[in-house]
């Protein structure tokens, strides 16, 4: 799961200035850290939905992504 997210899906997100890191998987919950443009994306939930689809399609696992946003310091103001 970690390799798939960071080495297959990660580069796709990097292409949009984003970044994803695997944190953990407990049952069907996969916890991921999002940085860069992903961290401030207003529609990150849609992207997570796409990642869940890709994981189901390519790893055969039904998961739910829990996204942790790590905003860049200059936007970390709330």
């Amino acid at each position: 799961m970690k390799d798939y997210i960071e080495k297959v899906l990660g580069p796709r997100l990097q292409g949009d200035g984003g970044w994803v890191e695997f944190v953990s998987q407990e049952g069907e919950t996969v916890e991921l850290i999002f940085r860069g443009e992903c961290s401030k994306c207003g529609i990150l939930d849609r992207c997570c939905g796409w990642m869940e689809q890709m994981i189901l399609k390519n790893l055969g696992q039904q998961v739910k992504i829990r996204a942790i946003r790590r905003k860049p310091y200059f936007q970390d103001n709330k």
Partner: protein
Amino acid sequence: MAHVKVVRRSMRPEEWTDLRFVWLQRGVYREKLEITGLEIRDARQVAENEYVYDDEAWRPLNKGDLYFTPDGTAFIRGHATIPASLKGQDIYFQLKTAAEMIVKVNGVYVGGVDPNRDRILLNPYINSDELDIEIEAYNRSKPDDERNPDTLAVRGCRQVFEGAYLATVRDNVQSLVYDYILLMDIAHCEYFNEDYRKFLFVELSRALDLVDFDTWEGIDDAARYVEERIYQNDDFKGSGDVALVGHSHLDIAYYWRRIHAVQKNARTILIQLRLMDKYPEFRYTHTQAYTYETLEKYYPELFAELKEKIASGQFEPVGSMYVEPDCNVPSAESLTRQFLYGQHYFRRAFGKTLDNAWLPDVFGNSWILPQIMKKSGVDYFVSNKMSTWNDTNRFPHNNFKWKGIDGSEVYACVPPTHFITWNMPSQIQENWEAYQDKETGGATLSMFGYGDGGSGATEEMLEMVRRFPKVSVMPKVEMTGGAEFLHKNLKDNPALETWDGELYLEMHRGTFTTKSDIKKANRTLEFKLREAELLCALDALCGAAYPSDALRDCWKKLLLNQFHDILPGSHIHPVYEDAMADYAETDSKLNSLFKGGERWFNSLNFTREGLAFIEDADGPVVRHGKRGYWAMPKLEGLTAGGAEPLKGKADWLRCQADGNGLQIETPYYSLRMNADGSFASLEDKELDRQWIKPGCGFNKMHLYADYPGTYDAWDILPNYKDVEHSLDVKAAAHLTAHDDVSAEFTVDFATDKSSWKMVIRLFADSRAIEVEHVVDWHEKHRLVKVNFGPDILTRELVCDTSAGYVRRDLTKNTTWQQARFEVCHHKWFDMSEAGAGVAVINEGKYGVGLEGDEVSLSLLRATIRPDVTSDMGHHDFCYVILPHAGDAIQAKVNQLAYEYNVPLTKADAAVPAMLRGMLNDCGLYLQSLKLSEDGEQLIIRLSEQNGARGKLRLPMTVKLLNLLEDEEGQTDVVAYRPFEMITLGIALSALK
């Protein structure tokens, strides 16, 4: 007494007008018929016009579906039939999207849609009722065009498809909407006359009173009212003279890879061509030969159409250069090649030699540029950022003359406002208000057009231009071409002021340092290309084929990666990976051009005097991770010979641990080294002086907090020294290797995330002190500098520019001096007083901090935007500390810096004696030796870099060429001035 703030809660009259303006815009479309049965296929672009598809099959695409994937390109197809109800009308393809789409109908490029435009008129291009629709769409989730708030609202990788339609438009509503866009912008803009704005609000409200927003009756009455009451009113007067130039800035790579720029460029050009069809008065400027080259290769149909518009004068190539490069870090030869390959492309493709450099977005401009431009046929220079982005001082000119390091002058325009505008009256008025040369410079330049795939001008912008003359408070405006603006306002203008110096940008000072690997690779390849061309040219003189295509390809790849968001380091991670792959490929190609030999070849045109590291698997020294030995081959210029290991001296070194440091004695120095590798004392035995100023650090490492804000990769802020973190010494300076030639002292540093090894090399037979840093770097928000505080009384730092030196003030008396706290240099910097000084020579570092009595070499950063992983990982870099007698010129610092950056090459090259005699120790540096682009001549480029004037007496008559390799005369005596670059051409037949 109680104070109550009175807040008006009821709707103001202006808000009532604003509200109805929104309603008015809803009436633009008369009819929209949804195109059903569309299909989509998701893909990811992997190379120029090459894609990997997520699925083999197409899937249906319906309104409301999510479409696009991260880093995705989508292909959409469908069929539509024009219904009888729409026939005879102007029919539009309409699609509102956040993406950038190229639309073909029945195989014809009909136009493009993106966040800045949502419809394409079909009638001029389609003569059938049956429409086969093909769309290539790149998801536009990137924060380009951040200045356009409309685009921000639709940012994101996964978009909701809002449907595609065949549509008709109420032309009268659309026209009135344009009137209101124009006039509402003025009404809301405080740059305009307050009374006129009040007048506008009243009249705009009254005009809308005539409109029925349910039936759209009264539109013509409202338009007539606007015409008679507002446009025909000339009671209010404006002033100003503004030239409007259509332009779309295009970053070849930034938040996208260069492979995506191919489509961004094609879309931009397509959309501008379609606008030219509708607006024959529209003129548009487009830069970068590379973008034309890719259009020619990947979109030949569009390219053919483009050539017609160029011939007609509507579409204007500007800029002359291959790309819009960074103009701080590339060498003089690289900048020369930007013009050479750019201009040669424009000549071949369009029969034009351009006379302007168009660099709106670059981060400051080197002082060497005017000469390079002037000798590349370029008399005019345009660059925006100094006016709009300087953080401390207001740059004093907009239209002026720029004098270069050698005294060459070009006409220069630093427009007062941004290069991306949407042609609103407020933006034009702001430009005029900010313009500082109103009395001397003629008209001011205002570029309009969205950038970076935002695809330039829109219909709205051109409709504004048609309406501007009708508004009495507007400045006089004229839509013109780029060259025409420059010729009309700057050429032969005797009133222009002169700026003599570099065009330093008081911002983005971190771009001299960010992405250390890219800068090192660029430096290495600049010199490797020099070596390869020179050796291949010498081979060609002996009858071998000259690999001109291979060399040109290598140059172009290097030049492409000098783009101003690649080389400076301000890009996303995949751009970094592309660049490093390009460098590796170029390096490999160049290696294949070297034929090898038994001897070591000195390609420099002077005798080597310094140390040379020779790679050898059996060598005693490990440097840059490779084994080798130290040599000091006294090879004459342009000759090959041996490079035997230095013999050295027995017992040349004394080293004693003393308290918390080392006391070291060499034939040259008595050095007191602190535990952290910094020098507490450096007594020079030859010069009988101390080099270290008490209280100052020397070779002293500093790890600073580095939080410059939004422009993280770009900026170093003046407060960077406020917070310093500890770089803990894990192993104090200690002697780790020692033989008759050299000694190595190693210090190990660490943070909780990174390890840092500093190796200090002293030599038995050289004054040079080399410092190597081997780093495993995993920080965030950090800047590492190494400081040098020599005991030298000087107020100047002499910095190499790659073709001459610039003297920079170390004092902080004025705001101009204070703003230049971090500057760019090339191979070396030097602090000298009468009789002696210290130089620091590097092999790929560019940032220097000016800190009064000390200077600092910027080593590494750890930024997170745009690349979260910027500069992470392994680094290995060296510099040389060189205390010397005399000043930098007398000490031949520049020569030694060349030696340090140009390794000896195994090659049994033979240089004709006549050439060797002509070039060796001639007072000029051999910058380039190659065959001409037409293969007929040997090209010799020499540059004066010491600030001297002289004459070069030649053994034969040669051609004097400009940098484009055009003949400008013939001579056998070349008189040169300080810092001049000379290009000579010798017919090959004369050398065989």
